[in-house]
């Protein structure tokens, strides 16, 4: 039996993707110039698909701290914290994060993916129920499967549907873990956390919120969707990443539950992987300070987000339901989306091409993510390029105006 036979359909999609010009899943960035510009095929390209929300990847102090940490402690830890030991910097970063998030406990993971995988798989075992928003990220789905819990999906951002599905679960005394995100990565819409908290309380369930796209973005202090909604006290576990607003790589989980620390010896994606290197911990520690001390970054980010969203909406594109740093343009057909994406790249604009089934409602998306580091004129150029490409490809109503959600 050919092990690759099961990928026949996928291989065909991948081949067709290459046929439309450049393969969207194999773009080579030749040189990174700044948080918002890279050289692709020799051309300066405006990057609108980086998730670099606060533009901190080139923060001078963060870069210097990373260099200094590498010189002082080396390029890597060469192993896991449980076997090789924790560096002082691991502990320090966890303490800093816990203080920032106003949580008693915090664990740092090597990626955001592993934070979700580890937390979900460890908290909810085969006897337990996990109830997840249907549009949750792949890492959440994978965590559910890894732990072996009984998985139920509820309709995206729908508290009544969550309530209904919790009611249908057997009264078996098993644990119940609800998982949602803060800002959803594909359409940029926010979870109605106030309502979800009410449902959670009514059913005696636990609630985990993945703030990957909302950390540093929402809330006065940038703690995310739960801070903005005023319900942090009712979120049992907050999960997030260092690879977006904090400009590095890594993930974390934080909680006020007193039993939390036992996860350090139970959570396999935490235990059996190499820990974060000194350079990352150093840059993230500095970036965290920036995030805390410079709320104006969030103001700039939201101003840029509004500018892009309004500009594209005025031009007639179908967008997600809310203004957020994720601005997704929905198109009708995969082929059109591929041609559109290629034309944008040729014209010096890089966005993310997101294809079903990774997108809600089976619609292909041209997903933009805005940064505080974008200049207004870059945002305007992106809008103009979208309009020009739509005209050149002869994309009119109703396709361009088809509802994104």
């Amino acid at each position, binding site marked *: 039996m050919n092990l690759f036979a099961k990928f026949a359909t996928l291989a065909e999609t991948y081949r067709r993707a290459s046929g439309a010009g450049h393969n969207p899943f194999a773009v080579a960035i030749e040189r990174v110039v700044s948080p918002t510009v890279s050289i692709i095929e020799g051309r300066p390209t405006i990057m609108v698909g980086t998730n670099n929300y606060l533009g901190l990847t080139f923060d001078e102090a963060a870069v210097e701290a990373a260099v200094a940490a590498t010189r002082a402690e080396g390029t890597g830890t060469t192993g896991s914290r449980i076997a090789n030991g924790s560096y002082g910097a691991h502990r320090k970063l966890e303490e800093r994060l816990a203080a920032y998030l106003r949580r008693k406990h915090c664990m740092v993971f090597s990626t955001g993916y592993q934070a979700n995988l580890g937390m979900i798989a460890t908290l909810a075992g085969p006897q337990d129920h996990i109830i997840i928003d249907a549009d949750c990220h792949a890492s959440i789905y994978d965590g559910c499967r890894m732990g072996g819990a009984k*998985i139920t999906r509820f309709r995206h951002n729908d508290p009544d549907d969550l309530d209904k599905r919790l009611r*249908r679960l057997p009264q078996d005394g098993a644990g119940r873990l609800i998982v949602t995100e803060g800002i959803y990565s594909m359409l940029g819409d926010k979870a109605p956390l106030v309502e979800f908290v009410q449902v959670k309380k009514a059913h005696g369930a636990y609630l985990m919120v993945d703030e990957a796209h909302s950390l540093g973005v929402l809330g006065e202090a940038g703690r995310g969707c739960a801070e903005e909604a005023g319900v942090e006290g009712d979120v049992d576990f907050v999960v997030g990443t260092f690879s977006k607003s904090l400009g590095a790589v890594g993930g974390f989980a934080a909680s006020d539950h007193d039993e939390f620390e036992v996860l350090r010896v139970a959570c396999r994606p935490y235990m059996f992987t190499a820990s974060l290197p000194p350079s990352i911990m150093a840059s993230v520690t500095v970036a965290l300070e920036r995030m805390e001390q410079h709320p104006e970054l969030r103001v700039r980010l939201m101003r840029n987000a509004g500018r892009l969203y309004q500009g594209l909406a005025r031009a007639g594109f179908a967008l997600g339901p809310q203004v957020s740093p994720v601005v997704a343009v929905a198109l009708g057909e995969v082929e059109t989306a591929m041609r559109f994406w290629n034309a944008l790249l040729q014209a010096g604009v890089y966005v993310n091409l997101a294809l079903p089934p990774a997108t809600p409602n089976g619609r292909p998306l041209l997903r933009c993510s805005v940064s505080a580091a974008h200049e207004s004129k870059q945002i305007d150029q992106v809008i103009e390029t979208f309009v020009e490409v739509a005209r050149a490809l002869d994309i009119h109503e109703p396709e361009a105006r088809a509802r994104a959600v």
Partner: protein
Amino acid sequence: MSESYAEIVSAISETLKAATKGQFAITEDTLLKRDLNLDSLAEMDLLMNLEDRFDVSISLNHLPEIETVRDLAQAIEKIKKGA
């Protein structure tokens, strides 16, 4: 309220016809993935719609064992009896 097995099969067929825009004839032997080209998301959405149709909880953990319409109908029948 208890539907017979035949009623469950017919409800699944209706749901599948709606999901695939009526382009396939559906029998108990229809393979969800291979005959109807349902991807992983479409399979999960199907389950969600059937949960609402029968007012039961069908965890995603059943999916690996469900290949045909018959497998799905039997799983729902079993859940309904247990409920």
